[in-house]
C-alpha cells in the first residue's frame, strides 16, 4: 500500500477532485432550524477513496448530498473538478445562483449510489443503465446499449439485464444502481450507505464491485459502517460527529490509533 499523505490544505488545489470549504447546512428556519453541518472542510484528491464514518445523525449523508447539490449548502463552498458547485462568482466576488440546467450538468459528472437503490421500477436493469446516457447525453440508443452491456457485465449481472428491479435481490439492485451511475462516466462517485439496506449475505457482492471500482482509479467518497471496507480500500478515513469532522487521516491512523475520544467511543461500538 502506498503511503498516502494527508492532502495538504490549500496547496495544489488543482489536484483535488473535491474541495469542501467551511460548509454549513441548516435545514428549516427560525425555531425549527436544524444545524446539521457546522463548518466542514474536506479534500479528496483525484483517484483517492475517502470513507466517511460516524454515528447516525452526524451529518455524513448530508455532506454527501451537499457535494452533488441534492441539498443547497447554507454557507461555505463546494468545488468539484475545479467547478464551484451551484454558483458562479463574478469579478467582484458576488455569487450568482446557477440555472437548474447548469446545475443538472454539474451533477451529471458526479455519480451517486443511494442506500435504497432508487432504481426506476418501470425499466429493466439494462434500461435503467441506458436512461441517463440517452436522455441527458443524447447518446443514440444503440451506443447507450453497447455501453450498458459492458457495464452490466462489469457488475456481473449480464444474465439479469432484462429483469425489472423488483425481480432482483437487494445486492443485485445495488450493483445495477452502481452501473447506472457509471454509465454517465462520472469523475467522482458518491456512495450513501450503499450496503445498509442489504441482507448481510448480500453485502459482499456490492463491496467487491466497489473495491474493483476503487482499483480502477475512480475517485470515491463512501459513507458506510463497513469498517473492514474502510480499512482495506480507503486511502483516507474521515470521522464525523455532530456536524463536524472530528478526525481524519489514513485508515491505519484513524481506525487503529484514534486520537479523539469520540472516535474511540464510536469504533468501540461498531467493531
Amino acid at each position: 500500500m502506498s503511503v498516502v499523505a494527508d492532502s495538504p490544505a490549500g496547496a495544489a488545489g488543482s489536484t483535488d477532485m473535491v474541495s469542501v470549504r467551511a460548509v454549513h447546512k441548516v435545514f428549516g428556519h427560525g425555531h425549527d432550524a436544524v444545524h446539521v453541518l457546522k463548518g466542514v472542510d474536506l479534500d479528496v484528491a483525484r483517484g483517492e477513496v475517502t470513507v466517511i464514518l460516524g454515528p447516525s445523525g452526524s451529518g455524513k449523508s448530508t455532506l454527501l448530498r451537499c457535494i452533488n447539490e441534492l441539498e443547497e449548502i447554507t454557507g461555505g463552498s463546494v468545488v468539484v473538478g475545479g467547478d464551484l458547485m451551484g454558483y458562479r462568482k463574478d469579478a467582484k466576488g458576488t455569487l450568482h445562483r446557477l440555472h437548474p440546467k447548469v446545475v443538472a450538468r454539474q451533477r451529471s459528472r458526479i455519480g451517486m449510489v443511494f442506500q435504497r437503490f432508487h432504481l426506476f421500477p418501470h425499466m429493466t436493469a439494462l434500461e435503467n443503465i441506458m436512461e441517463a446516457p440517452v436522455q441527458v447525453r443524447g447518446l443514440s440508443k444503440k451506443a447507450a446499449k453497447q455501453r450498458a452491456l459492458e457495464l452490466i457485465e462489469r457488475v456481473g449481472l449480464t444474465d439479469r439485464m432484462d429483469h425489472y428491479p423488483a425481480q432482483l435481490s437487494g445486492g443485485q439492485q445495488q450493483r445495477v444502481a452502481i452501473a447506472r451511475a457509471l454509465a454517465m462516466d462520472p469523475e467522482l462517485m458518491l456512495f450513501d450507505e450503499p450496503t445498509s439496506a442489504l441482507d448481510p449475505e448480500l453485502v459482499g457482492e456490492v463491496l467487491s464491485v466497489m473495491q474493483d471500482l476503487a482499483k480502477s482509479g475512480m475517485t470515491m467518497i463512501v459513507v458506510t459502517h463497513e469498517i473492514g471496507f474502510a480499512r482495506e480500500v480507503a486511502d483516507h478515513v474521515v470521522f464525523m460527529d455532530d456536524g463536524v469532522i472530528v478526525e481524519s487521516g489514513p485508515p491505519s491512523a484513524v481506525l487503529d490509533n484514534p486520537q479523539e475520544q469520540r472516535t474511540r467511543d464510536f469504533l468501540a461500538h461498531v467493531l
Partner: protein
Amino acid sequence: MSDVTAQTHASASGKDPVPNRIQARPVPRPGRIVAAVIVLVLAAMAANALITNDAFRWDVVWLYLRDIVVIRGVMWTLILTFGSMVVAIVLAVTLAVMRRSDNPVMRWVSWAYIWFFRGTPIYTQLIFWGLLSVLYPRLSLGIPFGPEFFSFRTDDVFTAFWLALIGLALNEAAYLAEIVRAGLTSVDPGQTEAAKALGMKDGKIMRRVVLPQAMRVIVPPTGNETISMLKTTSLVVALPFTYELMYATSAIGNRNFLPVPLLVIAALWYLLITSILMVGQHYLEQYYGRGFGTTTRRRGRGKGPAGGKQAAIAAAGTVNVDITKEVTP
C-alpha cells in the same frame, strides 16, 4: 400465478400430500338465506312495479329506443364525453405539473384555476359559455391594449358544439388536476432524487420517471371521472347544445306528450354505455393494479414479470397507492 395453479392441479391428480386433511362442517349462516329471500322479494316487487305500470309505456320505449334521433343523441353524447375528457386530461397534467412548479406564478395560476372551476357549478359555467357571443360578439387577435391583427364574429368560430366541449373540458380539468397531483405525490421522492443525481432535468424527470409511475394512481379515478362525464354531458342543454342524448329524448317526449317512456330510453342508454365503460375500467384497473404488493419472480422465462412495466412498478412499491387521495366531485 400460473405456476401456483399448475402445482395445485398436479397435487390434485396425484395422492393428497396432506394425509390428515380437515373435513369440517362450515359455520351455519342462516342470515344469508334470509337476506337472499328478502332481496329476491324486493327485486320481484320492483320488477312488477315497473312492468305492470302502464305509465311507463314499454311499447313506446321499444319503438323509440333505436330511433335515429336517439342514436344520433348517443353519438353526440359519446363524442362530447371522450372529446372533453381528452382535452381535460392534457390540461389536467399541465395544471398538476404547474402546481408543483418552483415558479410561484405557475403555482398560483394553477391554484386559482382549480379554485374557480371547482368552485362554480358546471351548469352556470355552461350558461356563460353559451352567452359568450352575447357578451363578446366579436373576438380579435392582437397586441393586448394595442392594435388588432384580425377579428371574427364569435358565433362563426365558437359553435355550440365547441363551446360545449370546451366548457365540459375546462371544468373537468380542475378535478382531474387534483387526481393527477395525488398521483404525482404518490411517487417515492427517491425516484426524483435518483434521476436528479444522474443529471436529468425537471421536464425529463417528470416525463420519464414520475408520470409513468403515477399512472397507477391516476388511471382508476380517471375512469370514474369518465363515467361521471358521460352523464354530465346532459347539462350542455344550458348552452344550449341540443343534439345529445338527454335533450334529444326529452324533445321527443315533449312532442308526443309521452315524457316518461323517453326518460326511460335515456336512462337505458346511459346505463348501457356506463356498463361498457365499467368493463373497460375493470380491465384498466386490473392492468394498472396487477401484482400489487407481490413480487412475481419468473426466472425461467427471462423477460419481465407477468404484468410488464406496471406490475414492475407495483412490485417495487415506489408508488404509495392510497385511495383516500382519490378526488371525486
